[in-house]
């Protein structure tokens, strides 16, 4: 049965994350953007909320919370409503934890889930995107060659969050055989197994540490391979669903700010919100936010039903990325000159929103 009614738990999840977004993340968002550093305390508090490990089964030392894709989508929208850099940073370990939960061997789960300790909760990340002018996810340039007991990895990865501090990174690479997405598997590479190059200098997400990695003959033992058996498309659908939810959050932040501003800003004797050009723009922004939220929810609902959501998630991600530009550009426009200065957060959301069109595997549900 299709339902849009949130359960008591989902409402509580939403309210808790919204409160965290507004009272913890938003308080530090501008200094973090200016300095390029997220306060360690915020990441720790995010961990204490159970965002990164709460869903790991108790058998592996986790808290055993059942988090559906729809629950995650609700959580992601609220967190991104707070701050995108912080959200991506806090949730980086899920990029490896969730694929492991879905496809990992018993041995891998035991080994890696138990590494998510209170003092090492920022243990994992994942590497997918490559620094190529013709980057095509269906034909990754990073290769894993079968060499007896090990696989040998060669290639470069870009936009890898927290690669400098992660204990292990899930690297997606193409094995010798297999075509397109079906030929991609995950390889768990410990810290030191690749060269972390300089930090990315991004337009947005400036508080988030992202790096380019160089894999130059990194050896990965056979039991450290995450065999996806064609499941990479499912992981991508999960990451793209997450991306739609994150986009919804950033868009809502920009929209709400612009709406409040338009009601207060007086020009020609009345609030600018009472001018049709501004009111219509705000209405269109609101419509688009509702639309992308529905896309995220539908895609998540399909995932929870065990359905193939690759198409829905992909269409939604693309649409949401465009919407994000439409909404954050208009938000800065409604603020006029104030939209251009850094005192107001809308220009930051505008820069952060640009990441959605060029990113992949930023978060996962």
């Amino acid at each position, binding site marked *: 049965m299709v339902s849009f009614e949130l359960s*008591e*738990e989902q409402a*509580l*999840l939403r309210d*808790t994350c919204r409160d965290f977004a507004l009272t913890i993340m938003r308080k530090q968002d501008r200094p973090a953007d200016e300095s390029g550093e997220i306060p360690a305390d915020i990441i720790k508090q995010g961990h204490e909320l159970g965002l990164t490990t*709460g869903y790991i089964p108790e058998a592996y030392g986790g808290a055993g*919370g059942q988090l559906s894709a729809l*629950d995650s989508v609700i959580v992601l929208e609220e967190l991104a409503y707070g701050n995108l850099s912080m959200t991506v940073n806090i949730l980086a370990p899920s990029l490896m934890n969730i694929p492991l939960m879905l496809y990992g061997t018993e041995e891998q789960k035991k080994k890696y889930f138990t590494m998510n300790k209170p003092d090492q909760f920022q243990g994992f990340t994942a590497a997918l995107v490559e620094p190529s002018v013709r980057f095509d996810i269906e034909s990754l340039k990073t290769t894993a060659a079968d060499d007896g007991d090990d696989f040998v990895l060669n290639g470069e990865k870009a936009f890898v969050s927290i690669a400098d501090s992660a204990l292990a990174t899930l690297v997606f690479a193409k094995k010798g055989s297999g075509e397109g997405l079906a030929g991609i598997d995950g390889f768990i590479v410990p810290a030191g197994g690749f060269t972390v190059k300089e930090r990315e200098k991004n337009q947005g997400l400036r508080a988030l540490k992202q790096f380019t990695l160089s894999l130059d003959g990194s050896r990965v033992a056979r039991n450290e391979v995450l065999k996806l058996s064609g499941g990479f498309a499912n992981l991508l659908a999960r990451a793209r669903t997450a991306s739609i939810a994150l986009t919804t959050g950033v868009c809502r932040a920009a929209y709400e700010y612009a709406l409040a501003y338009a009601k207060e800003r007086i020009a020609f004797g009345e609030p600018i919100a009472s001018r049709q050009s501004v009111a219509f723009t705000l209405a269109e922004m609101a419509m688009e936010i509702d639309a992308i939220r529905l896309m995220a929810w539908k895609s998540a609902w399909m995932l929870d039903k065990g359905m193939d959501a690759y198409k829905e998630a992909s269409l939604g991600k693309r649409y949401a990325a465009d919407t994000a530009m439409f909404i954050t550009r208009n938000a800065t426009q409604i603020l006029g000159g104030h939209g251009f200065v850094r005192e107001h957060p809308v220009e930051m959301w505008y820069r952060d929103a640009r990441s959605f069109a060029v990113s992949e595997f930023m978060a996962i549900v």
Partner: protein
Amino acid sequence: MKILVTVKRVSDPEAKLKIKPDGSWIQTEGVKFVVNPFDEIAVEEALRIKEKQTGEVVVVSIGEKVVTEQMRAALAMGADRGIFVNYTGSYDSYDVANILQKVVEQEKPDIIILGKQAVDDDMGAAGFMLAELLGYPQAAFASKVEISDDKKKAKVTREIDGGLEVKEVELPCVITADLRLNTPRYASLPNIMKAKQKPVKEVTVDALGAAVKPRVTVKKLTEPPKRKGGVKVESVQDLVTKLKNEAKVI
């Protein structure tokens, strides 16, 4: 150590409330409801005591079925179980104290912690009345609570005008929580998901044997008068004259 905490469902203090046209109550449609912030502090304090001493935290709520939403929030913070007193009629602070007295007699907690007041009607009376009915010592407006090593006494710091007062009360006792007692924790995601599995016992007022006879009834709600716009004065002398004669503040 067993700690009983009250959780009241109140309208979000941030929400802009409207009064029903007939003035009987506020319009509740579309209004967000939350745990009374002082009760949230009470739950947090109970959890902290439990974490130090071991034991059990039981939350109790009174009202219609919807109040269990707020009770779940307290369970998600870490409380162990709930008691939902199903009652749909009207009641006042004394009725609440009466109902709680019966719950206390059944549960026999070592400490009862309430928020110092609910932020909807700001009565702040139930805690005192409950202690009186039970004949328990009480420490209201607590800003710090320390349990003695033998678990027989509580040292409670209270904020009073111009300073702090430290009281020692014997257990069992009633404590009401003030704003600076603690900062409530966020419910963690796994605990939110698990809160549903925690037991909530539903009881009726009749089954408890409590008498509900409201002595206070709400006759009418009205909005505060709209503030009038200020006036500009021509000179300092004007200002002083107005402050003296019209505002009568100097």
